[in-house]
């Protein structure tokens, strides 16, 4: 990692300068070495779409894509994202057009309180990148690290299947 060491803060914490591209936009920022990626997004950058639901990497509410992989951003330091790319829920909608996963969750009633939804959608986006036509079991396995307390998962599975179908149809249309 090409990390320069910056001076310590008045609070005695070492800070580091990182370069990270988030939803396509470059950021050069000084962060405390101990800052978690989720706090960096939420507190330093004010991107509050990524949520925190636990402190043991179980619930998945904080899921973002780091270099294309779904990670739980409560268990990644911001400095580990140095020179990397991060995708969050705020980057799903492009040019005023919703991502198919967003449409899927809306159409199939895949959300209720909405708190797990951003992490759930980012996990689904990572799945659909790798697997264009997942089975129900593959969808369930993919989201098994994301907890939802409201929906009972049935409609989340349908939402992801809906998005997969739309994405396949769009891809076929373009081909």
């Amino acid at each position, binding site marked *: 990692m090409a990390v320069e060491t910056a001076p310590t803060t008045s609070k005695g914490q070492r800070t580091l300068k990182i370069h990270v591209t988030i939803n396509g936009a470059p950021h050069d920022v000084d962060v405390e070495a101990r800052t978690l990626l989720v706090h960096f997004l939420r507190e330093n950058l004010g991107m*509050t779409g990524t949520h925190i639901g636990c402190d043991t990497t*179980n*619930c998945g509410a904080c899921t973002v894509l780091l270099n294309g992989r779904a990670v739980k951003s409560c268990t990644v330091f911001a400095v580990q994202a140095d020179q990397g790319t991060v995708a969050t*829920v705020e980057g799903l909608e492009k040019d005023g057009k919703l991502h198919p996963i967003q449409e899927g969750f809306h*159409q199939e009633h895949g959300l*209720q309180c909405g708190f797990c939804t951003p992490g759930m959608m980012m996990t689904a986006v990572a799945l659909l990148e790798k697997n264009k036509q997942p089975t129900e079991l593959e*969808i369930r396995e993919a989201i098994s690290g994301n907890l939802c307390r409201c929906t009972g998962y049935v409609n989340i599975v349908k939402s992801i299947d809906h998005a997969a179908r739309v994405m396949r149809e769009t891809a076929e249309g373009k081909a």
Partner: protein
Amino acid sequence: MAVEIGGIGHSVKRKEDARFIRGKGKYVDDVKLPGMLYLDIARSPLAHARIKNIDTSKALKIPGVVAVITGKDLVPLNLHWMPTLMSDKQMVLPTDTVLYQAQEVAAVVATERYIAADGVDAIEVDYEPLPVVVDPIKALQPGATLVREDREQKDNHIWHWEVGDKAGTDKAFKDAEVVVKQDLYIPRIHVSSIETCGIVASFDKVEGKLTVWMTTQAPHAIRTVIALVAGHLGLAEHKIRVISPDIGGGFGGKVPVYPGYVLAIGASVLTGAPVKWIEDRAENIQADSFARDYHISAELAAKKDGTMQALRVKTIADHGAFDAAANPSKYPAGLFHIITGSYPFQKSFVEVDGAYTNKPPGGIAYRCSFRVTEAAFTIERLVDVLALELKRDPAELRMQNFIPPTAFPYTSALGWEYDSGDYGRALRLAMDKIGYAELRKEQAAKRAKGELMGIGISSFTEIVGAGPSKNFDILGIKMFDSAEIRVHPTGKVMVRIGVKSQGQGHETTFGQIVAEELGIPVADIAVEEGDTDTAPYGLGTYASRSTPVAGGATAIAARKIREKAKLIAAHLLEANPDDVEWKDYKFQVKGVPAKSKTMQEVAFAAYTNHPQGMEAGLEAVDYYDPPNLTFPFGSYICVVDIDRGTGEVKIRRFVAVDDCGTIINPMIVEGQIHGGLTMGLAPALYEQITYDEQGNIQGGTFMDYLLPTAMETPNWETAKTTTPSPHHPIGAKGVGESATVGAPAAIANAVVDALAHLGVRHIDIPITPWKVQKILKEKGVAE
């Protein structure tokens, strides 16, 4: 026409989704104010201990730490104790003794979140351990360790509550041909909404105004409680604004007041800076209020032919160190006396004793209306025990005994007046949908081969919609609810209600109620809630009360508007009001459909061309006091297969037939049932919080408190019958909790059914693979 309006009965897509799918929801932790400070809490590692000393000096030396608050600092402010919702009191911070593990001991206020946590780590507390009691049965024995030294009463007994005809019930049991008895333990569990609890408190010293953003299911009640508790600090109710922003799930866990809220408010009032407190998951599971923890002994008396006659129930309820239950004042055991369920018992007697233990406050809901799951689980389990005793099919035994549809309104042996029901129809539909007769044949064939398959039924009756003010209050505040509707000149509508969604979709469904009543498209109706400065006073959302109570208020407020609108329409149509009727979402001159006015035309006239002498405007408010509770019901059938090697219970199918009266939005109702079923599955097979003898929590994080994931959760199959509530303005009964109430018994009954031929009559939930495997080994059938 109707589809465009999006009125009652339409699966209108949710309005609130637009922000949530974009990550633009505004939850409490998303609130960030200039100069905001962060509060974090040091907690006790011991379940019962004397505090000899708290050394805050190292914490105070950390740059960025602004203050450390201990119980002694709160004494001069008289804020070291606070009232609970159940006429008990709870420590905000202790002055000398801690009563459970993870209890709040001190608070650190700092300029940044991480520094506040550093401060907590630097606090040094010297404890002297005291004896611990975690078992409520032991706690009630003479000589048990005293949990609450502050009380005059020097034992751990909180209250005794009983209902029913004791002498008559005892006689019925004495004379009975058949008596079955079953002890059940309904374990302690935690709602664990994916968003934890938190607050941002901002006190404006110049204006003397306190604004709080808070994860609360009942913002108005919280405002009044703050005014009552902190009035001596200069906080007055007209200068307290409680905003309940987007809430990431509640399920009852966001009804109580937790010490962290009080500490953040106190810190903001003292510093004049905004203060944020957000608990982490471990704090949430370990210290926030718990549900259930009922030790039940239940007996059922019947005739040999299966006719159920009497029910007798004795319960010990563990309420932890503080009785922080969120029950209506009159009912310390909530609505537990719905325990006679779907059956016409002649006699019944129920008693409950509350006990203090060295555990966090107990007695709140887990997505169920005031102890209703405990009741439904007990009666539905007991009916299966009776079926086994009499060698009867459990479906047939239920059908024989159900309260018949002709008996409604029906008054139960314990005094409830059930509004409407058709229990046989729901069970028949569930049996048809799942293929009950074929499943029984399959089960017999499998048993012959040594395979373990079970079928479980639960035909539950719920009790929701608290409630009629003659019986229901919380801290004296009557449990009415409210709606205020304003129709703007251009025909667009603002609706404000006294309840607060935590995911239920109120912005959509309450819009649909108004759309139906006023004939204005749901897209043109905005629904706001959760801000006490703008919303009318209400008691909040829990116990499935939003639709039964605030839904009634909304329909009635809309009808008040329609009454006035009719006069304006008559004026515009130059007709006598008696000749004008509301038909097809329009005002028409009777028999002359061509002569009509839409609500939008009337709304414009209400501000521009209303009749002489009439007040301008088109708006109404209603505070609705329901005449009765509502009684949703359903029949669930679960099919399980049991792995003889691992003891794992696999749910093969689960059919849920629900009847919640009139349905406003079928899509949302189905979603609520899916979620409720999953929260019924959870305690049936996975979730339980236990403590060791020293009061150490086992299961205090998501590492070992097992919420069902998509892998454990089956593909729920749902169906419905519709029996409207005769007393509700739109016939709706509420549905948020039915499935959580009904599901555990269906699952437990299915597992016991799979093992019944081996002599198994009951297994306490959660039915873990370990428990099942132990039974399989004992019975010599383990693989």
